[in-house]
């Protein structure tokens, strides 16, 4: 029994180093030149990446368990808080650190920052995400969730001069906080029922208790907060508002990892605490239904956008739907697929957001229609945009394509033929929308789209820098790193295999408790099936890429076709505009949808369980 290895110190350090740096920055930031602030913040992010990487390396043989305040358990019981780093958790922390590093490098030439507030907030945001990924305690998860949230609201509204910015931040703040309070209600219920707060400890009690309404509702309420963060339909409304207005480096963190941490939270809580009592078939069906809905709504809304950051935000919603579907297979292969997909998506989508930031810096707008043909001279930006767009649409050998292939395979193995269809369709639609926007902006293809008053245009977006005639080297470096990362994770199999084995550990309910509470060493695990490139995977990836190009072309030249087919497509157009009207930017609507969503989730999970 060993809770005191040197590696055990890594997890708390990865959480508090950014906190200490943020405090230092706040205190002395006003006297430091901007360059030094940048160096300090970037250096801290790099140090955190180093700690996370060391932690990730140590999780090869099992989980790294840390009992904070040294309250190591006796006979599996403790009053303390445990941090449990496994492959998936420490991988998420590592990804958060790496994205933060890229975002901070990108922002070297960004913002005329007021003192060091922006940097301090970003570092606290990193601390919150790291803690959420590493903790093994349900209430501690809530606290880290709130840290992530509070800092994120402030970061979203950071451009206070921008009218839409503060409104998006407020919508985000109210909906997300309300979700968090529902989570806390769930925690209260489960605490009353089990008398425990640790994930593993609660799981141990639930393993031995009968299934009743309380457990079902507690599960639904607990995951509601995480699902609001994950932007699952119908909890997703805040996401597009917040992404459309947040500063570009912040969008990278939101789309690249924060939203994914919501998905992580759902499955972490399911596997460690509820998987011994809630039947997997039931949970799988419920999550698949909502995951498919999320993917479809996100993809359709994405296609209808002209505000570049909003377009990317809806594509994130669509991809979250796919992550949920993959992980909802509730087996190791599907979980591995989701993990690889998240990794690849983080690279491609973050690069696209940064490119949108570059476009904003250069042309003072992120509106696809306004920018028509404006980007003809920006060769490097155009090439990177196209590559990232193709990666998003599932072109092999990018990691997005590999993750998609593994997910499709896992869903097929469970008999869900709809899996591959959905994955290909969503990749084609979202990738197509991105490529269409790119073709308009950089190549000037297609006619200039007509004005549409109903839509959020990207013209009011406030510049975040001085006007930049050329892309600075630091921005270029951040973007190239992200795209390259997406490629490397797709072709360098040790990374995928590490995540695959990690997924097997992630879904090991008993093993988690044994190691966290009793210090027993983890079993060695085999690689899940189907996590390498297959002919089918490559073929489906190529299919979605070709379809994406087709979608882009249709988007550019469809005006005539659409008019011709107007009568045939009329019902679809009505659905589309109805769907668009639901995204009203009204916080009252959003809260109403939270209630509907909770009811729907509870019905999906609970009704089939009634005897």
């Amino acid at each position: 029994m060993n809770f005191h290895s040197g590696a055990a110190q890594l997890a708390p350090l990865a959480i508090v180093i950014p906190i200490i740096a943020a405090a230092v920055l706040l205190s002395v930031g006003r006297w430091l030149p901007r360059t030094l602030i940048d160096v300090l913040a970037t250096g801290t992010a790099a140090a955190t990446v180093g700690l996370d990487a060391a932690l990730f390396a140590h999780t090869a043989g099992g989980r790294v368990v840390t009992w904070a305040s040294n309250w190591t358990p006796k006979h599996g019981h403790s009053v303390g808080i445990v941090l449990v780093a496994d492959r998936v958790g420490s991988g998420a922390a590592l990804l958060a650190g790496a994205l933060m590093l890229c975002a901070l490098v990108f922002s070297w030439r960004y913002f005329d920052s007021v003192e060091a507030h922006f940097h301090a907030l970003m570092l606290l945001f990193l601390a919150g995400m790291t803690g959420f990924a590493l903790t093994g305690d349900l209430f501690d998860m809530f606290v880290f969730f709130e840290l992530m949230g509070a800092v994120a609201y402030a970061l979203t509204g950071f451009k206070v001069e921008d009218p839409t910015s503060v409104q998006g931040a407020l919508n985000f703040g109210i909906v997300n906080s309300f979700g968090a309070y529902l989570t806390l209600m769930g925690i209260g219920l489960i605490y009353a029922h089990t008398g425990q707060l640790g994930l593993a400890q609660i799981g141990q009690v639930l393993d031995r208790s009968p299934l009743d309404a309380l457990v079902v509702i507690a599960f639904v309420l607990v995951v509601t907060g995480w699902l609001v963060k994950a932007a699952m339909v119908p909890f997703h409304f805040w996401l597009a508002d917040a992404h459309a207005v947040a500063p570009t480096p912040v969008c990278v963190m939101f789309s690249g990892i924060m939203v994914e941490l919501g998905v992580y939270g759902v499955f972490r809580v399911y596997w460690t605490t509820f998987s011994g009592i809630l039947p997997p078939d039931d949970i799988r069906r419920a999550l698949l239904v909502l995951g498919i809905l999320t993917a479809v709504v996100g993809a359709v809304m994405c296609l209808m956008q002209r505000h570049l950051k909003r377009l990317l935000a809806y594509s994130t919603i669509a991809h979250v739907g796919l992550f949920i579907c993959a992980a909802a297979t509730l087996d190791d292969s599907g979980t591995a697929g989701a993990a690889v997909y998240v990794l690849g998506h983080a690279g491609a989508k973050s690069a696209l957001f940064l490119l949108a930031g570059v476009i904003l810096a250069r042309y003072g707008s992120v509106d696809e229609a306004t920018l028509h043909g404006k980007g003809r001279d920006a060769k490097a930006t155009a090439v990177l945009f196209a590559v990232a767009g193709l990666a998003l649409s599932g072109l092999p050998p990018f990691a997005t394509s590999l993750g998609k292939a593994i997910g499709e395979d896992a869903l097929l193995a469970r008999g869900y033929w709809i899996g591959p269809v959905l994955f290909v369709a969503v990749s084609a639609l979202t990738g197509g929308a991105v490529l269409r926007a790119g073709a308009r902006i950089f190549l000037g293809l297609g006619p200039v789209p007509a004005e549409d008053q109903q839509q959020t245009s990207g013209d009011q977006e406030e510049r975040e820098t001085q006007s930049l005639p050329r892309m600075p080297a630091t921005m270029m470096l951040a973007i190239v790193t992200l795209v390259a990362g997406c490629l490397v994770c797709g072709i360098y199999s040790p990374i995928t295999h590490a995540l695959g084995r990690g997924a097997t550990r992630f879904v090991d309910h008993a093993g988690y408790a044994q190691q966290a509470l009793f210090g027993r060493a983890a079993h060695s695990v085999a690689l899940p099936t189907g996590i390498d490139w297959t002919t089918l995977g490559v073929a489906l990836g190529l299919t979605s890429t070709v379809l994406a190009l087709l979608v882009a072309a249709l988007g550019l030249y469809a005006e005539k076709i659409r008019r011709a087919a107007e009568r045939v497509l009329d019902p679809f157009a009505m659905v589309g505009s109805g769907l668009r009207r639901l995204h009203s930017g009204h916080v009252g609507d959003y809260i109403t949808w939270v209630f509907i969503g909770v009811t729907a989730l509870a019905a999906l999970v609970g009704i089939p369980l009634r005897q």
Partner: protein
Amino acid sequence: MSRTARMWLLGLGLIGVGVCYALAALDLPSFGSTFHPYRDMAVPAAVAHGAANAVTSIVFDQRGLDTLVEEIILFGSVIGAVALLRPSREEQEHGPSPMGRVLEPTRLLGYVMLPTTLVIGVDVVTHGHLTPGGGFQGGVILATGLHLLYVAGSYQALDRLRPVALFEHGEAIGAAGFAILGIAGILTSAAYLTNMLSYGTLGQMFSAGTVPILNAIVGVEVASGVIVLLARFFDQAVLLGHQRESISVPQPGELR
């Protein structure tokens, strides 16, 4: 969505969630029961570490990590609110607006209550491990108490007593202090945030190890943070005027 549609949908959602919650609540142990497994472990643990106030022991010792993060939430929110409330380009300071006559009794009440509140605040912080209260409660009392000066009608006095920059440092030092004391736990003992000092005798001033120190640090952090936060809100409400002229667009007729 129209208002009517929203209300209908909301009604549906409220009924749905209400029914779910009621079903769950009916399965709870009845109110006031003796089923508290965590309590059964936490109270002996608090006593073993010499903390006469079991709540404070849980807050700073057993579940100290939660409290660290909670303080960081406060820290981050204060930075966030300060950043969000920074004066924008079209605003400028224009001295405190006249607040009207403050009644003499009110003014007197403010001046009398101020020292009392501050003493209570310090007492609540320093005895947090023994009696109800602690760094957080005491910090809020101290910070809010200081603003009784405003009730006393003296914004100038408040402004002098409240060098905001200094309190920003206090806040940062408090936040960093908590985190760094945690690292000291790694260096001296086995784990982050370990309560590494001697536990003393239950009920004594110097007991419960690091708990009183953390309490004091949190007191500094919370008092400073709340002062900075309130200062920013006061600046907005009292000092900053909105220069409407500078942003108003000239009407077509005026251009001639």
